[in-house]
């Protein structure tokens, strides 16, 4: 029992120097709009309380408080642990255009001291990010190439596209389905319509559907997204109209199954087993379902044409399908099948972009090689970083 009062005495004796001393506030508190961002963010910086360095009174943490008026009611946003040379805190929940005041509170064991409020400061969104100028230049140059070649194609210039093996087989696949009296199954991937691969898949669907309408075969398009279904219905309807067979269009054949990845796979597998399609197309964005679909399609004896720009799924399609469009071939496919000037011009414009990429790589590698032997070309280290590093 004697040890308790003695312990209390010792603690009080140790803490005695701290009593009667005020904890000093954090110094140099600044609040500013976070630069080069999309807004809704204010960054605070400050230096530690002199007590933190002097260790007279222990500073446990710095709390950050926010109000819309300097003398208003402050709300606590969070805290930063002590023990640093410089402190930074980012308020990610600021409303754009609203003036805020911030207080940094140095918190000790028994007392807390506020620094003078910093502000007013408003969060704003920047329209232009100077560090991403290279992206802007690359986009403008690429767009200029594409527009130039589109205008050339529209003016009647013949633009050459090399043979793409997988696409040569489209007609063969549709013909086979017609001869066998079985449907063609077209799977446009599992991503939504804002995915560029889905857009490519739906564009190709238009060309395939025209061919199917001309051959008078049946087309089944199970979709995993409602927007893709709506778009696919429009595209297939247009295709049947273009082929002069609007009566053959069946809206219910372009149907929605489910957004769920494996629920969709189960549904498509069921369609394959019961409808026994003669030709399967898997074009678009695919993930783990790629092999399940391709294996099931193979087991029902369908000719299979796949295409995706997902590197992790390409091996499965290559292994289980008859033809596979690899990466950019998927995007080139619509131009190849339709021969439309807009698409052809776009493809040739992108090819010119690739030539520039190739030249850049070769120049970069040569300069890196020469740098090994002490030569410098074009001030290599600075120039190349400025060109290609995206912040």
């Amino acid at each position: 029992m004697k040890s308790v009062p003695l312990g209390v005495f010792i603690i009080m004796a140790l803490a005695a120097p701290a009593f009667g001393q005020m904890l000093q506030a954090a110094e140099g508190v600044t609040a500013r709009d976070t630069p080069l961002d999309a807004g809704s963010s204010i960054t605070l910086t400050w230096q530690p309380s002199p007590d933190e360095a002097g260790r007279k009174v222990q500073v446990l943490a710095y709390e950050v408080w926010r109000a819309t008026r300097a003398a208003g009611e402050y709300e606590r946003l969070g805290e930063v642990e002590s023990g640093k040379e410089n402190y930074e805190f980012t308020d990610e929940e600021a409303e754009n255009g609203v003036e805020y005041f911030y207080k940094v509170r140095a918190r000790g064991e028994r007392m807390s001291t506020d620094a003078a409020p910093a502000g007013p400061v408003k969060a704003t969104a920047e329209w232009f990010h100077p560090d991403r100028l290279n992206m802007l230049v690359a986009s403008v140059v690429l767009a200029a190439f594409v527009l130039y070649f589109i205008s050339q194609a529209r003016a009647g210039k013949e633009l050459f596209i090399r043979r793409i093996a997988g696409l040569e087989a489209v007609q063969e696949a549709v013909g086979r389905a017609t001869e066998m009296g079985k449907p063609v199954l077209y799977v446009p991937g599992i991503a939504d319509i804002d995915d560029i691969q889905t857009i490519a898949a739906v564009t190709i669907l238009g060309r395939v559907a025209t061919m199917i309408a001309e051959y008078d075969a049946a087309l089944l398009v199970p979709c995993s997204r409602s927007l893709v279904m709506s778009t696919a219905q429009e595209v297939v309807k247009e295709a049947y109209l273009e082929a002069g067979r609007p009566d053959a269009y069946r809206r219910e054949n372009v149907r929605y199954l489910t957004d769920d990845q494996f629920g969709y796979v189960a549904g498509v597998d069921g369609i394959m087993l019961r409808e026994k399609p003669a030709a399967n197309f898997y074009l678009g964005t695919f993930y783990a379902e790629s092999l399940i679909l391709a294996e099931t399609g193979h087991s029902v004896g369908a000719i299979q044409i796949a295409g995706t720009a997902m590197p992790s799924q390409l091996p499965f399609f290559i292994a289980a399908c008859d033809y596979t469009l690899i990466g950019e071939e998927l995007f080139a496919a619509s131009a190849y099948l339709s021969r439309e000037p807009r698409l052809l011009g776009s493809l040739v414009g992108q090819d010119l972009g690739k030539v520039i990429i190739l030249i850049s790589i070769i120049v970069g590698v040569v300069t890196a090689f020469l740098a090994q032997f002490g030569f410098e070309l074009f001030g290599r280290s600075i120039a190349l970083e400025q060109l290609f590093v995206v912040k």
Partner: protein
Amino acid sequence: MDGLTLLGTWIAALLTLCILSFLYKDNPFYKFAEYLFVGVSAGFWIAYNYHNLLLPNLIDPLKGAFVVLLLEGRLDFRWLTIIAGLLGVTMLFRFFPKAAWVSRYGIAFSVGLGAGLMFIVYLQANCIYQIWGTVKLSPVVITEGPGGQHFDWPTSVSNTLLIVGVVSALVYFYFSKEHKGVLGSTARLGIWFLMVSFGAAFGYTVMARISLLIGRMEFLIDGWLRPAVIAPIQGALASLGLL
């Protein structure tokens, strides 16, 4: 294991077996599980999209904006979400055949926006980063060692393979010229590089798929068979004095 958990485990196990029965052939059990899966997941995603897309991105901001209008008498930027809402409403016109054309505005906006946004993403990730990753490589790397400079052959070989692989694969994706002569040979080398990388990816992903199968089998054995089938049988036999 309480009664509800036991019931859930039995349902999960039986549905797993129904799906696995597909390995034999299409059958009524698989059909039942398939229809249930498709139906339940479609319903789930409707609720999920309402709570995670519609509510936080449209309904809540509009509610907040309405409150600000009522209390402070000013219009704030959140009213802009009404444009997205209206575009969404255009989709519903598909239910009225005579006005179905209105839905094309919503679709066109989604397609255009998606293409525009992804243009920058693809350009940055697949083009600019790829160039930067390659241009800094030297096919010959000399490093400083304790005995002076020496030729770092493992890094040099690795860099050379990377440079040749990137250049030849890029040539394969060049569509405006027939792949003949030097262009053809380089493109063929490119497809070799691609196939080797696909082979490596194939092996890696097959391993991951096998681990998924193992996980499902573990559930069947440790999560269902032992606690929900074998243990109750053993308990019943023990209570009858047979064990």
